[in-house]
């Protein structure tokens, strides 16, 4: 079969990726630069017997998506900075109640209304810590339009597998940039659906993990099971608890279910790292510029290497530490005042000098600028 070739914006590709993953519900509220995702969903979902709803605000958008997921539909919401802030409380409910969900933040400049039509990477720590309380984050940062499509599929798979929200941290440039997207027609993407309970309704414990994988199966409202969902800390039956042992078990499991699979989840990309003395760590749209800069540096004879975070969270800390051992300097260009550089520093454990490089003027780095910085710090 012939592959399908599209010329799509990142936002459009992301929406189509979600549909390919089996997303059949979208709840959201318009905000630049994410609105195209909602617009594609509004048009396509009813054709697939899915449901789209524009809610009264972002809080309601994520709430409706979580509600739909409780009935067994793969659900998504998409937003940008101010909306991402509004979603945080209900995002926490999805972590606590272990409801699969994909949340997209197309990053723009902040704080507050900031720069609605300009790129930033200022929300990457919010992705990790935005909602209150301990929780384990899975967040992806695609850096091409093709990858927007593929990341959406991956994010749904992870959300379904680990029964929790998964974040896609896109950005304004990526969201609005048009590139070729190839959809392979002969190889279907791997699709993961949530594990269903095997026991009778009266024996179903919605938060009891299976022994073999430590992950709990999930029923859907309407499929014959009766169960309770709450944002209160709960026991395996899903009922609120004040028992320290049960509380500890739940809280730890929320972290452990991701930590235990960390090696399977963590993703990154590298180029020219074997003999790299100067490693450039980047993500999202900046990674494209950083890769050009590293290649230019190599042409000039500089021992530069490229490391792209594909998962922002979990952070590829061990992998960076290994490379730090062999390199002298790690340069972290970011469109923020310095966020992932802190994580990089933590990972490097002092084995290499970590240098931030920050641009906060609403623009994207130019390859020459990063090259210059490589020359300067090298």
């Amino acid at each position, binding site marked *: 079969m012939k592959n399908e070739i599209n010329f799509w914006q990142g936002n459009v590709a992301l929406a189509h990726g979600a549909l390919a993953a089996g997303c059949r519900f979208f709840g959201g509220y318009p905000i630049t630069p994410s609105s195209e995702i909602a617009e594609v969903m509004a048009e396509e979902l*009813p054709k697939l017997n899915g449901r789209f709803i524009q809610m*009264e605000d972002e809080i309601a958008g994520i709430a409706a998506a979580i509600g*739909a997921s*409780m009935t067994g539909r793969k659900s998504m919401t998409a937003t940008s900075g101010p909306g991402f802030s509004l979603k945080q409380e209900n995002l926490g409910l999805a972590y606590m109640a272990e409801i699969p969900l994909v949340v997209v933040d197309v990053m723009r400049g902040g704080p507050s209304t900031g720069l609605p039509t300009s790129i930033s990477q200022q929300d990457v720590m919010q992705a990790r810590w935005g909602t209150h309380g301990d929780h384990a984050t899975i967040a992806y940062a695609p850096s091409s339009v093709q990858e927007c499509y593929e990341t959406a599929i991956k994010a749904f798979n992870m959300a379904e597998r680990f029964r929790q929200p998964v974040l896609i941290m896109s950005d304004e440039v990526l969201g609005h940039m048009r590139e070729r997207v190839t959809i392979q027609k002969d190889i279907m993407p791997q699709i993961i659906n949530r594990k269903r309970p095997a026991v009778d309704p009266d024996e179903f414990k919605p938060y009891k993990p299976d022994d073999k994988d430590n992950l709990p199966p999930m029923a859907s409202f309407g499929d014959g099971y009766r169960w309770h969902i709450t944002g209160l800390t709960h026991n395996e039956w899903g*009922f609120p608890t004040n028992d320290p042992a049960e509380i500890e078990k739940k809280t730890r499991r929320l972290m452990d279910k991701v930590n235990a699979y960390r090696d399977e989840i963590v993703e990154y990309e590298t180029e020219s790292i074997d003999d790299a003395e100067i490693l450039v760590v980047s993500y999202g749209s900046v990674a494209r510029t950083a890769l050009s800069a590293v290649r230019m540096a190599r042409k000039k004879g500089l021992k530069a290497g490229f490391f792209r975070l594909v998962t922002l969270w979990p952070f590829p800390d061990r992998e960076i530490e290994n490379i730090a051992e062999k390199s002298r300097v790690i340069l972290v260009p970011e469109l923020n005042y310095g966020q992932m550089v802190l994580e990089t520093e933590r990972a490097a454990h002092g084995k290499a000098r970590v240098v931030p490089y920050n641009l906060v003027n609403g623009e994207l780095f130019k390859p020459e600028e990063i090259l210059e910085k490589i020359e300067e710090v090298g």
Partner: protein
Amino acid sequence: MPRPEVMDWLRKQFFPHLWCPGCGHGIILHAILRALIDSGKKREETVIASGIGCSSRMPGYIDACTVHTTHGRSLAFATGIKLSNPDLTVVDVMGDGDCAAIGGNHFIHACRRNINITAVVMNNNIYGMTGGQASPTTPLGAKATTAPYGSIEPPFDICQLAQGAGATYVARATIANPVLCEKYIKNGIEHKGFSVVEVISSCHTQFGRRNKRRTPLDNLNFLKTASVQLAKASSMSEEELEGKIIIGEFVRKEIPEYTEGYEKLIEAVGGSKV
């Protein structure tokens, strides 16, 4: 003792409940269960959603598909549930704070959308759970921990709010008349569209104590004497209605329901064949 069918709908292991003895909310729980049973609903096809508050702890006691969401947001969750699976019966229980303060925006939009959900607003004129702070329905002059000198804000009339926002079934009862509560809730459940049943509840612990209604009985007596049937109220003057609670069915109309509208849209674009 409740009827045996009612007992089937209870998670009996959690009794005695956490509400203060004499709290008005329990009467509403009983009325909701009777209404669901009399409407022929099944537990596994019924979703009870709630926000956060004393009132919103209700779903924990109901042996159905229950979801205790975030403060004020339950209607947004319920909207997603209902739109996603319109075969489910969805009852959304909430407090006056949930409904009219933090959740006010979701409330008016659910009314406007006319989605087939029954909202039961358990109005005790106070924030019970957090210790007696003023709510948007605290009467002028009534005392609350955050209105120690008496509230100077005019309160919302939840039924008028619902009516203005477009709800297609709107009724009010009080816990002093459980039979009427049950009847209106049942009418709400059977009505196709967004239904609002405001039940004037009581919180002697946090409201009554500061407002000369110390005991549960003081509250029941107050609700009995203050209640006026809608038919009678229409012939009373504004002065006569001062401090009264008008009970009755304010709105009952049929307009297209949201999820049915969406099903039609799916049909029109060919999605129903997928």
